[in-house]
């Protein structure tokens, strides 16, 4: 690293050293690949959001007046496919993970920079296939591709989308593999496992699932696809094949996939809560271990999606109990975060608003998950809006809050610019309020018996659906605002110091934005989140010279 320091020029960083298109599309720099991913996942978030908007507009009235039943099937399927496979799964790992994993372990890059770029191209091919499918008629099987609907009966673009999901899987596998090897072999001297930031532990656990789970859904879709195209008969009931086997194999990946989406958010929240409570995180070891625990437990609970398929009552009971067990490591996290905030000097910057919002929403999502794990209740609310509300609380209220919180927290590091504090706080509050207004009514609707995936519904459900659509409008506004003020800050924002939040992990020890090879001088490794350390006191003193003290808006 000393070799790089000699040629260090403070005016040149990873962004401005070369702006040519070629330098971006052929970049091997993990920080630039993070940007490629940020731009692409944002595009797919907008596409998925567009389909969500159509759904909410259709459900404003009880009659199925806006979309035909067939079109509605396609719209909700495409909302799910795009949001899950092309936005949520890559969002935090491929954007924040790519940017931060090498920085946080004090490495020059990930272990396999070329595979890293390859993973973005694979993702892009998958994205293009999905867009191609959307243009040529879309897909109507639901994002779960259940056989025999997908393999025999559906007459939409099932194959294109299944191939896209198959291909996209290899993008996640490569990213996961890269992170695992980077964390194992590229850590700076003295940065032992026990000193790694909790975000790294979360990325480690996520990557394990990516590497071990994704190939199973890949092979499953390959089997269903071969059945559809080549006429093989693996899940075909006419030959004695078992469509339920497809569901088992599908959920073996797709339940852990929930943790691919939420574990990275846990990692982000751990960083945010420690930084904005200015306190050593409470229960470091427990939070780190619970990430890995959730990843492992996540592999043995999948059949809770299948309680109504007529599976054996004994198996169902075991899966129900195992599912409830997941509440333990999850609660460990929530309790430790709360304990960290307790008696900390909490400051309500924008990222912290997202973190606290996350705590509230995820708590509801998690607890309703325990409710759904109980057999009796699950059978009552199976395939209703209760389930829809539950997984949106986890995946939107959890994962997207984490993603936005993380983007707002590391934005100064990624861009070297600060964004407008007041607008961003307003937008964080809009997201929180809009989210609850959208999805809380859906718990009630589901409990009252409104089934999911229908374009029309009885009139008694209308009032709550109007609430939900109104909330979705507020939520949409909360999501659109950052696109504007963040883009504005990219060009016109105030210059950011190296450590604008006075935070402790080592990515804040390098200039914002970082130079090509990440660190100018080897980073100082401390105990994790040691806010009593001399280094941080110096940096905060430095910070006070540069940045006007911000007002505390909610205090």
């Amino acid at each position, binding site marked *: 690293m000393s*070799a790089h320091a000699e040629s260090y020029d403070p005016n040149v960083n990873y962004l401005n050293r070369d702006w040519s298109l070629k330098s971006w599309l052929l970049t091997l720099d993990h920080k630039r690949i993070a940007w490629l991913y940020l731009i692409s996942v944002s595009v797919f978030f907008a596409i998925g959001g567009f389909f969500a908007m159509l759904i909410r507009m259709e459900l404003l009235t009880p009659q199925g007046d806006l979309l035909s039943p067939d079109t509605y099937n396609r719209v909700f399927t495409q909302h799910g496919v795009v949001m899950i496979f092309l936005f949520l799964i890559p969002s935090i790992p491929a954007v924040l993970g790519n940017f931060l994993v090498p920085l946080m372990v004090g*490495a*020059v*890059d990930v*272990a*396999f*920079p070329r595979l890293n770029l390859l993973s973005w191209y694979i993702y892009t091919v998958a994205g293009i296939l999905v867009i191609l499918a959307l243009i040529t008629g879309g897909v109507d099987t639901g994002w779960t591709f259940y056989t025999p609907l997908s393999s025999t009966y559906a007459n939409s673009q099932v194959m294109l989308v299944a191939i896209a999901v198959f291909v996209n899987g290899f993008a996640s*596998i490569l990213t*996961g*593999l*890269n992170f*695992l*090897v*980077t964390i*194992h*072999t*590229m850590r700076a001297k003295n940065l032992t496992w026990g000193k790694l930031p909790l975000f790294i532990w979360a990325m480690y656990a996520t990557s394990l699932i990516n*590497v*071990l*789970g*994704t*190939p*199973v859904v*890949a*092979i*499953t879709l*390959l*089997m269903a696809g*071969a*059945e559809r195209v*080549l*006429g*093989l*008969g*693996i899940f*075909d009931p*006419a*030959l*004695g*094949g*078992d469509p339920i*086997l497809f569901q088992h*194999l599908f959920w*073996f990946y797709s339940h852990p996939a929930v943790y691919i989406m939420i574990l990275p958010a846990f990692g982000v929240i751990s960083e945010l809560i420690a930084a904005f409570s200015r306190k050593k995180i409470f229960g470091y070891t427990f939070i780190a271990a619970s990430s890995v625990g959730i990843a492992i437990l996540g592999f043995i609970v999948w059949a809770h999606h299948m309680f109504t398929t007529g599976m054996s009552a004994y198996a169902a009971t075991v899966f129900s109990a195992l599912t409830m067990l997941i509440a333990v490591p999850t609660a460990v996290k929530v309790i430790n975060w709360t304990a960290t905030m307790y008696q900390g000097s909490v400051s309500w910057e924008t990222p912290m608003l997202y973190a606290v919002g996350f705590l509230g929403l995820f708590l509801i999502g998690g607890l309703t998950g325990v409710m759904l794990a109980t057999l009796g209740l699950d059978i009552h609310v199976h395939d209703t809006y209760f389930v829809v509300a539950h997984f949106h609380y986890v995946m939107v209220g959890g994962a997207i809050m984490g993603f936005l919180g993380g983007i707002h927290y590391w934005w100064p590091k990624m861009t070297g610019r600060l964004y407008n504090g007041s607008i961003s706080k307003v937008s964080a509050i809009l997201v929180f309020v809009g989210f609850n207004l959208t999805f809380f009514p859906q718990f009630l609707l589901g409990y009252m018996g409104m089934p999911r995936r229908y374009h029309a519904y009885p009139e008694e459900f209308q009032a709550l659906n109007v609430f939900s659509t109104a909330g979705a409008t507020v939520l949409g506004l909360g999501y659109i605002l950052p696109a504007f003020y963040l883009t504005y800050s990219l060009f016109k924002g105030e210059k950011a110091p190296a450590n604008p939040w006075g935070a402790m992990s080592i990515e804040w020890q390098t200039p914002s934005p970082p130079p090509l090879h990440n660190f100018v001088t080897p980073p100082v490794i401390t105990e994790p989140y040691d806010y009593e350390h001399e280094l941080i006191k110096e940096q905060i003193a430095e910070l006070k010279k540069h940045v006007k003290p911000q007002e505390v808006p909610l205090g």
Partner: protein
Amino acid sequence: MANGHSTTLHHHFESYDQQRNASSLGMWFFLAQEVMFFGGLFTAYMIYRTQNGLDFAVASSHLNIPLGALNTAILIASSFTMAMAVKKSVLAQRKAIVGYLILTLILGCGFLVVKYFEYAEKFEHNTVPGSSFEFHVEPELIAQYDLSPERVVTMEKRAEIFFSLYFMMTGLHALHMVIGVGIGIWLMFPAMAGKFNMDYHNPVENFGLYWHFVDLVWIFLFPLLYLLGGNALAGG
């Protein structure tokens, strides 16, 4: 970094040790991924095999055991030549690396040729799943197990599932062999240029791991698909 083979040490690694560790750990994680990939298929096979034991045994008796055994022998031999190539690459013996790699590739291609003849046989006998699938249970078997006409019909349907799994599993395995041969050819260039030595041999070593893994898959496929059925019938 000023030493002779600086071109083989990528700039983001600090030492050859770190580069080798990273590269082989990456390969092991990749193989774990492969285990799960094939694992989905093996799971499906095991479940159907347990549910339809006799049906699968009958279907399995239509596979060509001598050709399968020949291929098993070919692959085991190729694993030996591959292991030798890795050993020679550590010792930086340029000609020996190239020689063993060529032997490995020849054996790999031999496997694929035998597989081609096996597949061709299936196409001739219409035991390829799809609309033209045809499977008839031999009269001796019907007599031996006293099968009702309905039972014979279900047996013929289950045979289509067996052959679906057979083509899926062996096909995916063969695809891995084709990819392996491709990587092997690509490795010939650095091997001939004498790039491999004590410090830098991880490409050959990783290719070896991949090759052994693909062999190992076959070591499971051969008994599961070819042998289990034949034995059950002979003993019955």
